[in-house]
């Protein structure tokens, strides 16, 4: 109680003291302001996305043109190939999806959307980013130690990951664990902040069912993260001890159990999929509702089915281990739960489509991305059903079908949905608009090549192409020109997609300084972040707002305007 009110009081004083200038260090390097911390997370995530994309480019080139001297990279040896795919996965999940979607948007949006001045624990928030920054440095350093970066796949299955003689990256694999552990601590601190802030600092009048759905989604994701990450921490400690001290927790020869790691890892790893999915579902819900000019269809349905999905997500993990030698009777149980989980998620999708139905849809750039997310994510979800059936899984396991499936979920989540949110909230973040035309170029230039990359991979997977092979010329069954043609097509699509990110970067950094000035509420949206100036000042609100209704009251009959801000007592 005292903390909340104390923070409120001090920041209100700050808001009144117009001349209180913060130094450069205080403002940009060691801020306690949630908006700046959110942007720090976002920029770090963007940088890491570039690293992860660069890695993908290098190993895709190797697969399409084996043995080639990759431009801007060089030779991809088997050892380097393993390091590239491992760290591509690790970076994209832990250093792009989580920091941008949860920490970036979560930090930026939560206090603004629930109408308070800052997080409940601003200094813990700052510590969270600092630990995350250190984790980033440790991961990047691990690429340059003797032996190179870790090369045992992002799932780090022992004994490959635990015995240096097997993985040949004695130091890289340990630094990898340290980096992941630090990153988890950072998100733990951030997550505690998010949930506590949403619980205790909402604006007067904002009831549970008046919270914008994106805030709900981020909070559900964070709670899931906190409930699922314990096993990964325990497993990471044990793996680290196996590597460095010489224990045998995961080594059968010494009485350990390698499948134990898989259980510990996937007990975290599967909920993690939903941890990154939910924030994007929320971001997309807000974008879709605003540009349909219509109330979000089934607010409570979406909320409750999301919670149900979150619960179910904890009992599906063994579907990653169908061929790991687990009891087939146990596998049956996990088939049922895995197929069940598609029901609530489908329900959420239908709610979004129902929101579109009958709306007066505005095809702005954020809306295009949001619709693109719905379409591509649907394909990812549907292909998951095949993998969830244990019979089919025996054939598909570790094939490119799996790779294509999870990229059809993760790419829409991390890139497509995230871009929608970025184009939507960019005016609020920087006070200027992104260029519409180049935004549309960027959209089509990302969406079409994305399908060009991963649709062929479904076919390759069905043809039996195994994931963890760096040169298919060595396998006569897989070296046929037909299959190689598909690989070249996928790689060419990837290069095209990466090239289309260049106009985005120019647009992004150019608009930040030269873009069209944004008014406080450029999209005519209802939620509280749109009542403050763009970009919001330190302390956000001049006086803290009161909330009179839910966030999605668009096109209400009897109003002159088709939107109705949450803080407006009278008709609009």
């Amino acid at each position, binding site marked *: *109680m005292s*903390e909340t009110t104390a923070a409120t009081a001090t920041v209100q004083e700050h808001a009144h003291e117009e001349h209180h200038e913060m130094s450069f260090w205080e403002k940009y390097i060691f801020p306690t302001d949630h908006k700046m911390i959110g942007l720090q997370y976002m920029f770090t995530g963007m940088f890491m996305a570039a690293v992860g994309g660069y890695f993908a480019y290098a190993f895709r080139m190797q697969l399409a043109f084996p043995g080639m001297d990759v431009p801007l990279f060089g030779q991809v040896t088997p050892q380097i190939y393993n390091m590239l795919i491992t760290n591509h996965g690790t970076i994209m999940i832990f250093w792009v999806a989580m920091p941008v979607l949860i920490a970036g948007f979560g930090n930026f949006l939560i206090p603004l959307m629930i109408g308070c001045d800052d997080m409940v624990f601003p200094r813990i928030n700052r510590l969270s980013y600092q630990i995350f920054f250190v984790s980033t440095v440790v991961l990047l350093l691990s690429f340059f130690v003797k032996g190179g970066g870790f090369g045992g796949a992002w799932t780090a299955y022992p004994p490959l990951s635990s015995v240096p003689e097997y993985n040949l990256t004695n130091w890289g694999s340990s630094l990898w664990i340290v980096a992941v552990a630090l990153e988890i601590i950072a998100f733990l601190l951030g997550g*505690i*902040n998010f949930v506590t802030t949403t619980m*205790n600092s909402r604006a007067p*009048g904002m009831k549970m069912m008046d919270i914008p759905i994106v805030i709900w989604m981020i909070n559900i994701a964070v709670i899931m993260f906190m409930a699922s990450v314990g096993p990964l921490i325990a497993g990471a400690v044990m793996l680290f001890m196996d590597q460095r001290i010489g224990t045998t927790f995961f080594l059968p020869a010494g*009485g350990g159990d390698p499948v134990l790691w898989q*259980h*510990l890892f996937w007990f975290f790893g599967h909920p993690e999929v939903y941890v990154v999915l939910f924030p994007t579902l929320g971001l997309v819900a807000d974008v879709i509702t605003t540009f349909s000019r219509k109330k979000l269809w089934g607010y409570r349905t979406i909320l409750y089915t999301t919670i149900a999905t979150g619960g179910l997500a904890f009992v599906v993990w063994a579907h990653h281990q169908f061929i790991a030698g687990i009891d087939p009777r146990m596998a049956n149980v996990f088939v049922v739960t895995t197929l069940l989980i598609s029901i609530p998620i489908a329900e959420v999708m239908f709610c979004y489509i129902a929101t579109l139905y009958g709306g007066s849809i505005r095809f702005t750039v954020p809306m295009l991305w949001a619709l693109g997310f719905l379409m591509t994510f649907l394909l990812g979800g549907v292909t998951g059903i095949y993998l969830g059936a244990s019979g089919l899984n025996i054939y598909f396991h570790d094939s490119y079908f799996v790779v294509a499936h999870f990229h059809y979920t993760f790419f829409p989540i991390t890139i497509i949905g995230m871009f929608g949110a970025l184009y939507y909230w960019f005016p609020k973040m920087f006070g200027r608009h992104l260029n519409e035309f180049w935004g549309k170029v960027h959209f089509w230039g990302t969406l079409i090549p994305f399908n060009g990359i991963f649709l062929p991979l479904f076919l390759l997977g069905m043809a039996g192409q195994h994931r963890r092979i760096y040169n298919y010329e060595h396998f006569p069954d897989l070296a046929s020109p037909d299959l190689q043609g598909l690989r070249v097509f996928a790689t060419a699509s990837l290069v095209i997609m990466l090239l289309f990110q260049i106009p985005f970067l120019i647009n992004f950094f150019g608009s930040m300084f030269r873009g069209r000035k944004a008014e406080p509420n450029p999209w005519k949206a209802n939620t509280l972040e749109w009542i403050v100036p763009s970009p919001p000042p330190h302390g956000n609100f001049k006086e803290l707002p009161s909330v009179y209704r839910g966030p999605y009251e668009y096109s209400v009959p009897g109003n002159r305007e088709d939107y109705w801000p949450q803080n407006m*007592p009278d008709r609009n």
Partner: protein
Amino acid sequence: MSLESLPALLVTAESYDPAPVPQRPLIDSRQFGMLLFIVTEVMFFASLVSAYLIIRSGLEEWPPWGQPRLPVWSTALNTAVLLSSGVAAYLSGRQFRGGSGTAQRTLGISVALGTFFLVFQGYEWVQMLGFGLTVTSSTYGGLFYLIIGAHGVHVLGALIALAYTWMRMTPGQEQPLTQGGASAVRMLWYFVVGVWPILYVLVYLA
């Protein structure tokens, strides 16, 4: 009922409560944050317990041949010490809420008992190492040091927090200790104390 009054019964946008009331936090932020942290901790220790059970169930002989037995009785005594430290922390909390001046002394007793637990555990570890139970001597030894060590690290961390609380209870502080902050630290201590009997039964007795 006339047809005209029917629209009034339908839920319209106007039927929202027109008068916002200021938010009254259901629970203090620090306590709530600590509660969330403890959720993660519970899952962490649950994973260690399940790892223990899975590895143990895969071996025919437990403890493995040639490994020393654990000191059941002296650790039972130590368990009692830790539990009484938890009780002392609870009593201190009650006294602090009641504004009693003895709160700091009671918390001091709690810290002292907790420190005794930790030191005695360390003494036992030295003995176990002397008997040939090391972290690499078997998975038995590895799990013992992993689980009991993980708990020991938590005891150390929570004791530091508790000692800091004790320090802050000294009268004449610039920023007096708040109920919420003190209570959050005690919650951590209750967790550390409460998880110990489970680990004791699992690792020492079962």
